[in-house]
């Protein structure tokens, strides 16, 4: 039993601990709710656009040629599209005030889903009202805890958020490196052989983009399909940048490579780029797409797409189907400016030659990302002074899994004439020489 003297020591120790606790509480300083931000943060100095962001865009009161908006087919200012939207506006009003399951389904939605399914030659399509939410809802609808997703390192932020929401095991493979993907798949196969009962209940997915937003490169779809059948994984293809761009009729990467669309389990795309509408769609087999009608969080719990935008998308699809020649015209223009921008000292062109959205990165980084961003911003500002509207690719730097290097993103649209492309290439060359030397 403890003696009286030892008991005194225990009480003293406890009292000392309490005092220490009080001291620590007094010393503690809370972090500010809003951390201090420097005055030249890009979110605080934004450019103001007056009027539509069409081919001739008015930025900060200055008329420029638009090389920044993803208006690939120039449908943003198309009179037919605007007329269809106005007719729909007069008929339905502006919003739908309800999700699809709660009186928010209009005939234009069903029409658009039908048309998209027919256009992409799949069984069914499903519409989301926000492009970002499309792939971010589609992935967690199929992939749950315990499932494995193999995803490219350069996947866009929407895919990353979808993967985070899915709570699955994420395996990143190096960008467009099929050998790395095969290595990961092989390792998974070995794990599966060790534990076949667990393997029987785990689903495997491969998530890739057709044309990557962060790098402008194309995914090697034929090898991916081979790997899919060899290792029994399902492919989710995100075609936001390649829908309405690649392929003979604009159907995307599958048409570009001549792969049967039944080999891809789910195609998800943004309607905010080529179709110049808002929202997104997923298409595939009925068996696959029907599941999202109850499990797609963005479908069930968000208000549906405003009918005027759905009507605009239908009209845009009509235009795409009527002149399939614009896709090759767009690709020609992309190749032209890609060639024209080669050989700038200090800037390198990152992206495929036929990609309408490619990046200009610094050949040699200064060492700190902030300085790189400042340099590129100078180039962008000078180009803006010479009426070429460019933008830097912006990321949430703390949230991205694999942050791409800072770059200027150049977008090519069908509406840009050859002279404007030449002028843009010349301007960028001169400005880059002036700023970087």
């Amino acid at each position: 039993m403890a003696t009286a003297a030892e008991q005194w020591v225990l009480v003293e120790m406890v009292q000392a601990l309490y005092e220490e606790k009080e001291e620590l509480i007094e010393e503690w300083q809370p972090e500010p709710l809003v951390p201090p931000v420097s005055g030249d943060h890009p979110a605080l100095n934004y450019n103001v656009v007056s009027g539509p962001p069409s081919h001739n865009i008015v930025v900060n009161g200055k008329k420029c040629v638009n090389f920044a908006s993803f208006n690939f087919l120039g449908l943003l200012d198309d009179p037919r599209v605007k007329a269809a939207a106005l007719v729909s506006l007069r008929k339905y009003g502006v919003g739908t005030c309800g999700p699809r399951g709660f009186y928010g389904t209009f005939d234009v939605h069903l029409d658009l889903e039908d048309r998209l399914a027919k256009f992409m030659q799949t069984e069914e399509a499903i519409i989301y009202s926000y492009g970002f939410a499309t792939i971010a809802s589609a992935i967690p609808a199929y992939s749950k805890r315990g499932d494995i997703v193999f995803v490219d390192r350069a996947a866009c932020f929407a895919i990353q958020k979808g993967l985070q929401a899915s709570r699955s095991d994420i395996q990143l493979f190096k960008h467009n490196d099929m050998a790395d993907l095969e290595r990961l798949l092989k390792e998974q196969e070995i794990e599966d052989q060790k534990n076949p009962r667990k393997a029987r209940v785990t689903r495997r997915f491969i998530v890739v983009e057709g044309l990557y937003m962060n790098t402008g490169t194309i995914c090697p779809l034929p090898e991916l399909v081979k790997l899919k059948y060899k290792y029994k994984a399902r492919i989710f293809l995100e075609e936001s940048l390649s829908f309405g761009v690649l392929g003979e009729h604009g159907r995307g990467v599958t048409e570009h490579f001549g792969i049967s669309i039944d080999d891809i389990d789910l195609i998800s795309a943004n309607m905010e780029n080529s179709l110049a509408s808002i929202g997104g769609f997923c298409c595939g087999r009925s068996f696959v797409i029907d599941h999202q009608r109850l499990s797609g969080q963005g479908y069930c719990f968000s208000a549906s797409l405003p009918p005027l935008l759905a009507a605009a998308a239908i009209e845009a699809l009509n235009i795409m189907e009527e002149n399939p020649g614009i896709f090759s015209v767009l690709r020609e223009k992309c190749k032209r400016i890609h060639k024209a921008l080669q050989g700038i000292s200090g800037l390198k062109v990152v992206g495929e030659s036929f990609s309408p959205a490619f990046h200009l990165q610094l050949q040699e980084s200064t060492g700190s990302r902030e300085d790189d961003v400042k340099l590129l911003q100078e180039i962008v500002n000078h180009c803006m002074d010479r009426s070429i509207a460019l933008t830097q690719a912006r990321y949430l730097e703390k949230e991205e899994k694999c942050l791409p290097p800072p770059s200027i993103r150049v977008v090519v649209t069908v509406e840009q004439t050859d002279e404007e492309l030449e002028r843009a290439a010349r301007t960028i060359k001169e400005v880059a020489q002036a700023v970087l030397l």
Partner: protein
Amino acid sequence: MGGGSADSVPPIERAQMGEGGCFLETAGVEASAAPRAPRASEASRMNVGVAHSEVNPNTRVMNSRGIWLAYIILVGLLHVVLLSIPFFSIPVVWTLTNVIHNLAMYVFLHTVKGTPFETPDQGKARLLTHWEQMDYGLQFTSSRKFLSISPIVLYLLASFYTKYDAAHFLINTASLLSVLLPKLPQFHGVRLFGINKY
């Protein structure tokens, strides 16, 4: 997994109140207060009180209103059906009731895993049996006590009606142990020899 998670406290209070009880009571009060109410209002009250924000309804189905009574009636029904078969003597019928009840309880509570519906938590309970899902893993709740005591009560009745015969005793005891052991908190999430793990 284990008791004491923050969101398990409300289910206990609801269990003691009886789920949906207050809604039915208010509906009853309104119905009696307006006896001349037309049929349409009764139809429009169809889905009053059915929306819930429970992430995994499996966790509180055994706390629902009337389910304990339904369970007892079901066991009684099984017993009466077995009693109606002319070949079985009373001891055999009681042993059969005990064994079939325990077998069904083992299959539904301790073998079948996950949920028959999709849950918004991305499959957190995919590998858990219904017993492990009950009340989000909180131990010694009223439903758990009820479901542990009911096989014991059946066992006592079966022992009495089989006049403590040796063979019946062995069968009934083995059956009782098979259904009591998985209910121990020490066996929460335990899968012996990897059986039923995935």
